[in-house]
């Protein structure tokens, strides 16, 4: 059985006017959405059902015409929907409707956990960057050194009492070797000075970060393992006042421009004149406090002009290190001490504990 064409016409005309009437009354985004679902919903939409019922029962010859009317109706629904959407969009973004999407912004943020840079690495990188800006390249050397590089070429002659101040860990069974070949754990980063000068004629500007070891009993501020940053600058006309200016600049870069430095005579076999450097106390700004033992000053590093005897050792391989023609300065500082000051660390052992609670704080 087939429906007459007029009936089909009437049905579609009624539907079209219903669409227009309903669309005109849509006042909110929600109503628009309901309208859309009502007509265009994929499973229960009226158009879906209509197409199923009409097309299923239509005769073949009618299908084309019904299809055209159907498509016209669908186009009308979509056009009306678009108009209604346009009209009601404002209400979608109204305060009232957005309020329903309110969240508690005081809930904790979701964080990706990132790993921390070790405070020693961080401090060493900071120091290296300061000296890189002054033209210093990075030099490194082995932790197991020969007596020659660690002591002899640094002007600690065999049997010299100054060796006693650096209790040395030595590799087993070295007594059978010539003294200068004996293997030990370097007690300072200074051997890299000699290794660098042997490889490279002046001018030299290197900064040497590294790990060193001494046979020291551990306490709150001493560890048998620790780190140093060493520097060496050699050229024609390098002076003691250049050493002072360089370190004064470095300390200001590290601790802030208000920090002052002062230099004291000291003694290291490989420098002469030798100096200890104090900075004005960063805790009390020089007024005197517990941390600086009321002096207003904190001792931070050792330095001096390269001893001509050290140049003489270097000149064995690089004759350009003639102490009558060139001069230079060297300095060395304990990284742990600086990191302890900067970050308020009381126990040096915490650096080597791998304690998550300690390390996390540097993330």
């Amino acid at each position, binding site marked *: 059985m087939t429906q007459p064409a007029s009936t089909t016409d009437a049905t579609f005309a009624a539907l079209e006017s219903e669409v227009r009437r309903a669309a005109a009354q849509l006042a909110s985004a929600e109503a628009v959405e309901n309208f859309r679902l009502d007509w265009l919903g994929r499973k229960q939409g009226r158009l879906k059902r209509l197409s199923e019922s009409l097309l299923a029962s239509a005769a073949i010859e009618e299908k084309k015409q019904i299809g055209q009317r159907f498509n016209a109706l669908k186009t009308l629904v979509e056009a009306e929907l678009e108009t209604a959407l346009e009209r009601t969009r404002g209400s979608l973004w109204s305060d009232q409707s957005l309020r329903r999407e309110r969240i508690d912004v005081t*809930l*904790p*943020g*979701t964080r*990706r*956990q*990132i*790993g*921390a840079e*070790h405070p*020693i*690495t961080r401090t060493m990188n900071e120091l290296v960057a300061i000296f*890189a800006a002054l*033209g*210093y*390249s*990075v*030099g490194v050397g*082995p*932790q*197991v050194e020969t007596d020659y590089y660690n002591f002899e070429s640094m002007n600690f002659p065999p*049997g010299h*009492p*100054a060796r006693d101040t650096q209790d040395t*860990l030595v*590799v*087993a*069974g*070295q007594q059978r*070797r010539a003294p200068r070949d004996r*293997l030990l754990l370097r007690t300072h980063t200074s051997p890299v000075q000699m290794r660098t000068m042997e490889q490279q004629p002046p*001018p030299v*500007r290197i900064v040497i970060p590294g790990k060193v*070891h001494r*046979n020291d009993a551990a306490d709150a501020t001493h560890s048998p393992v620790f780190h140093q940053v060493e520097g060496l600058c050699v050229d024609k*006309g390098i*002076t*003691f*006042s250049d050493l*002072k*200016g*360089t370190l004064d*600049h470095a300390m200001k870069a590290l601790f802030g421009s208000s920090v002052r430095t*002062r*230099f004291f*005579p*000291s*003694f290291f076999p490989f420098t*002469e*004149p030798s100096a200890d450097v104090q900075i004005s106390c960063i805790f009390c700004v020089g007024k005197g406090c517990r941390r600086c033992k009321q002096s207003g000053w904190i001792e931070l590093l050792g330095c001096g*002009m390269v001893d001509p005897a050290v140049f003489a050792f270097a000149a064995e391989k690089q004759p350009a290190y003639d102490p009558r023609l060139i*001069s230079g300065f060297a300095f060395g500082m304990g990284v742990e001490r600086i990191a302890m000051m900067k970050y308020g660390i009381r126990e040096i052992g915490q*650096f*080597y*504990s*791998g*304690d*998550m609670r300690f*390390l996390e704080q540097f*993330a």
Partner: protein
Amino acid sequence: MNILTTWLRALLPELTVTDAQLGEDLTLRGIAVEGIHDLGSGNGSLFEMDITTNRVDAMNHYGVAREAATIYGLTLAPGAAPLPAAHPAAAPFPVRIEAEDACGRFTARVLRQIKIAPTSSVNGPISSFASRMFTLLEQKQISNAVDASNFAWLAMGQPTHAFDLDKIHGGIVVRRARKGETLKTLDGVERALDPEDLIVADHAKPLALAGVMGGWETMITPATTNVLVEAAWFDPVAVRRTARRHGLHTDASHRFERGADFAAAPLASAIVSALLLENGGHCEGDLVDLQIPAIAARTANRPPVALALAQVHRLLGQTHDSEGIATATVESILSGLGCGLVPQTESGTGEAWLVTLPSWRLDLEREIDLIEEIARVHGYNRFANTLPAFSGAVAARPGAAAESLLRFTLRAAGVHEAIGSTFCSADDAALTEPQPRAAVPLENPLSAEAGLLRPSLIPSMLAMLGGNLHRDIADVRLFELGTVFADASPRSASAGRAAEQLIERVEESLSLAIGLAGSVAEDGLVAALELDFFHLKGIVEQLVACFAAQSVLFDTFPSDCALTPAWLHPFRSARLSVNGLTLGWLGELHPREAAARKFRSRVLVAELAVDRLLTLPLRRPALRELSHFQPVRRDFSLLVPGRLCWADLDRAIAALGIPEILDWRLREILATGPGIPADHQALLVSITFQAADRTLRDDELQAFTAAILAATERLGIRLRASGTQ
């Protein structure tokens, strides 16, 4: 060392500055006053000194006073009053120096009718000044003999020794010991002497270890009436060797090892004698004073040193005051220190001098030493702060960028950097060393548990993981980028190192350890996720992805071929090889090792040979053209026989070489379920296709799918029943 300002003021009657000022001025000139303690009204202060090893001359009151005199331009009072006239002696006391290389000077003074008395009574047997100094220094007083020697030591830093004269047979001989000789020293120890030992002997036997410690037999006792006072100069090396051999370190050896003042012996002898004579007795004969000219020539009478003003300026640079270091400054500083200056006129290169050196300053030998003295006394802080000119380039250290990238990647993966111990125990070394007996033992380790240099970072990583787990910190993510050590001495064909073989060379390599335990902790509303092998592998994959590599392979070995390190779970670990080179190992800690360390939770560890990784170039991103066309994803549910692993499937897809395959990934693993036969598992793999130049058509996609299924078919992989996923 402690110094009394009262004593300094006695030596420097014209000194007017306050104790605090004196301390500051001394410190700024390298005679460091570490602490100042007020001793109460009229008693001045006690200075706690920290004097560097090269300034042994200033480790006593006279020496510090001498520095102060230089600073303020004052005159020092004489160190000792003249002794009363001596009774004549029939002959000088016999003294002979046989060891002329090691004893430069020996003075002997005979005192007779001496009364030895303990220093207990209020009016002790020694002078009120000395007694007061002892009290202020809280130095225990024992007897006038001991106190006299101590006083000379505190005053001048010159060791002296008093012998019971009546126990000396014949006279004094300073010589090397002879084989078989023995000596009971003042500490009561009977010592067998070495032929290298420097001794003071009489004509029959050894009396004392020269410059180290006196002998028991000739020591002063209450019964002593006649005394021989020794003040001498002994060679630093000879004393050091003797002291070392006998395991002794005394005030005397400390001073002689660092170089005593050749000229000080007569003055020290006079101080000791004067104090002993206060309680009665007299000197007999003149001071016997033997000197070895060769040693005098390298101590008290060293040749003068040439000094040029131009060198002073070349090395010291600019001062704050515009005149800088002037001729007059040089002359006043050096003469104040006891040097003699002879101006040199013929040089023609500006101001120059020949400078004679004071006997007490053996540390001064060269021009640079004099330049240091000028800077020191002038004041370091009077030099300007200048920056040297620089015209060069900063060279990047090879590997620095790659190391920095590794650190960055690890931190981005949420792993914290740690630094562990350089040392490990023998057990840990045996567990982790890559070759047997490769670990390097120390001669003098910090402890038995730290007897070797670590051959691997695993021991220190496990120690740090344990430190956390045992503190109930369950979630641990650590890495260490550090050095490992191996004996790399040239060896004969026989493997390993016998105990007596010499370690000639130690190889250091950069290694990376990663240690994980617990979970990626919950944060906010994100649930905790327990860490497993694949988290560790993911981190390792990301690290390797920093480098350009042709092939990256994770493989395993049969448990019976002993290739997998003993610290790893043999079935939950893998080797990483890149371009055919082993780069490291990763996996779960072997349950045996976990139990031994009382780890209750799963621990994951990896160690990578960073040195080898760094031989690869860093991967430079090469951009893939972004397609404008829609990607298409197809999911495949595959039944994979148990004998196959993911890598087989992975390789099969890769081997197809279909350029339109953009990406494939594993979405799910089902071990059991409908349609999954025994000894199979179902893998859900999604593959994304995309072409750069067109939208893919259905027939193309069907062809790709057919190719993929054909390839997996050849491996024995079937599609799971259609419709199920």
